[in-house]
């Protein structure tokens, strides 16, 4: 059930290369949401008695258990995110409406999560919620242009230490020396495939840049993965 909430921008972290994480404090508790859902963020003033202004879609990166704060991570790509770069500043105000979407990771089967760049935010809440005792096997392939842009690596390492059933493969395109255990280059399936128990019975979830999504999806189809086992988080 969706709600529109006014938020104060509590914290902004610049990760470099025009990638940012913003922590927003809503004026009332967030509605219940599920890991993998997304929100709309509007920069312009909004009068609740009128029409919703221009907004953009962002995965809710924070856990559903935290209903007093909401976290998003974004990269500057177009006019709206360019405006965000100057408008979403600490102490500033924005409006959000949420939750939307059904990119919710299946918990009954093994899953492979393929994330590129800020696409990791579609999975971060799910990963945070993993229990050490889970029987499901979760394989995460997480890539970015450089090690410093693996902005959720710290959270993932915490999860990995806590949850034996979680396996992670990092990919970085540049400065590979800074993260020796990462696979050099873009996210691909070769390094992930041996970690899967039963690829044909695994649900695959892909979130990231459109080119990466197309490549991974094509590769999965080529490897005989059924269309209904491939889930894509893609927005315009």
């Amino acid at each position, binding site marked *: *059930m*969706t*709600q*529109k909430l006014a938020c104060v921008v509590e914290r902004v972290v610049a990760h470099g290369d025009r990638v940012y994480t913003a922590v927003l404090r809503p004026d009332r508790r967030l*509605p*219940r949401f*599920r890991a993998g859902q*997304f929100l*709309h963020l509007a920069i312009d003033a909004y009068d*609740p*008695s*009128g*029409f*919703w202004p221009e907004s953009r*879609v962002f995965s809710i990166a924070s856990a559903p258990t935290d209903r007093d704060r909401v976290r998003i991570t974004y990269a500057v790509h177009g006019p709206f995110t360019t405006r965000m770069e100057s408008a979403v500043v600490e102490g500033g105000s924005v409006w959000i*409406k949420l939750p*939307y*979407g*059904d990119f919710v990771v299946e918990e009954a089967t093994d899953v492979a999560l393929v994330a590129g760049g800020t696409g990791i935010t579609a999975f971060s809440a799910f990963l945070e919620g993993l229990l050490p005792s889970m029987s499901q096997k979760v394989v995460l392939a997480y890539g970015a242009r450089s090690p410093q842009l693996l902005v959720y690596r710290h959270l993932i390492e915490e999860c990995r230490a806590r949850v034996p059933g979680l396996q992670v493969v990092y990919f970085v395109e540049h400065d590979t020396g800074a993260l020796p255990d990462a696979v050099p280059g873009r996210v691909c399936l070769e390094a992930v495939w041996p970690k899967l128990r039963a690829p044909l019975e695994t649900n695959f979830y892909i979130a990231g840049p459109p080119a990466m999504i197309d490549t991974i999806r094509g590769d999965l189809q080529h490897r005989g993965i059924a269309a209904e086992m491939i889930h894509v988080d*893609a*927005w*315009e």
Partner: protein
Amino acid sequence: MPTAKDLRQQIASLVREYYGVQFAARPFTPGVDLTHYAGRVFDSEELCALVDASLDFFLTANRYAERFETEFADYLGVSEALLVNSGSSANLVAVATLTSPKLGDRRLQPGDEVITVAAGFPTTVAPIVQHQLVPVFVDVNLGDYTVIAERLTRAIGPRTRAIVMAHTLGVPFDLDAVMSLAKAHDLWVIEDNCDALGSRYRGRPTGTFGHLATFSFYPAHHITMGEGGAVATNDPALARIARSFRDWGRDCYCAGGENNTCGTRFSQQFGTLPAGFDHKYVYSHVGYNLKVTDMQAAIGCAQLEKLDGFVAARRANFEFLSRAFRPYEDRLLLPHATPYAEPSWFGFAITVREDAGFSRADLVKFLEANRIETRPLFAGNLLRHPAFEGIPHRVAGDLANTDRITNDTFFIGVYPGLDRARLDHVADAFSRFMTHRGVAA
């Protein structure tokens, strides 16, 4: 130059003044003024909310609808609530939801059977018939007027797929029995909670046990927005389907006046439509338009804040009438709750005993002559009504009590608008009737 905000405040102030003049409490004259069985109970807050929403002139569902849905879901403790324009529409949406192709093999198909009762309001059963499903009627208890739980198992057939039943007059039906049967036979459950907002079963609100629940906000009900209703569920997938049926059957879930909420408005593929066909105009169900206006929702927001008080008043009035009528129990079967239930009473149902020495008609005519409104237990036996006589159906056992209800049962009000003067008038009228019939108090 005053701002729009200043003017709103002035208007609100005038509305409060208007309420005091137009709707001020007036002294009750027994036998002259009507003692209603139900009615809207409101103060200046409802009027102010209504006017405030009208000044937005958004007209369709907006901020007040969003607020009501959120607060109503919180009140129930469910994840999803969606407003519709009546309780009957809520039932229509709820049953339609279970026919969605999105449910795959679990969807209800024409000819599937749905267990229900015949003693109730027609629009609990009507959507079953309208979707070419087959109602299977089970008799009800006298006194609590809910399904005879022991007979439910016998109602199960090879095509039984769902249970759709009301918590009649606010009395929770045997939810232990119904939910256990549903689990054992993998049945859908829709709780028609239109008459029971505020009722509890084993301490938990009714309307939170089934896969879907429905609510009515007609003026006779526990809270009102004039015309209004809601569907509640804890299942986000069912909620999305229900929203689609409510909103023309569309696949898109943008609210009125919004675009591209899904973020994929022009990049999806549906059936044989051209790739990227505008998602806002893609229809995944043969749906309706059953939405509310924001003015209705605004009234609902103000009413919801009073709900706990309304429920307490209904219970107190029920207790008053129970005490007042106890001396007549050898002539009248008085209402009672099912085990583990805390009803939020809709009305005070009375069945005239077969050996009472007078008929329901005798008593009802006397009460109506004394300006006390009465109502039958809605349709009585629905199968005896012209519209339902010929419908495909099955009866599990007999409907002997349902027929008794048709002949001998009626109810009077317990709504919060009944003050002590009106309740005394009701008690006095019963006393005079019984005295006239030679019944000692």
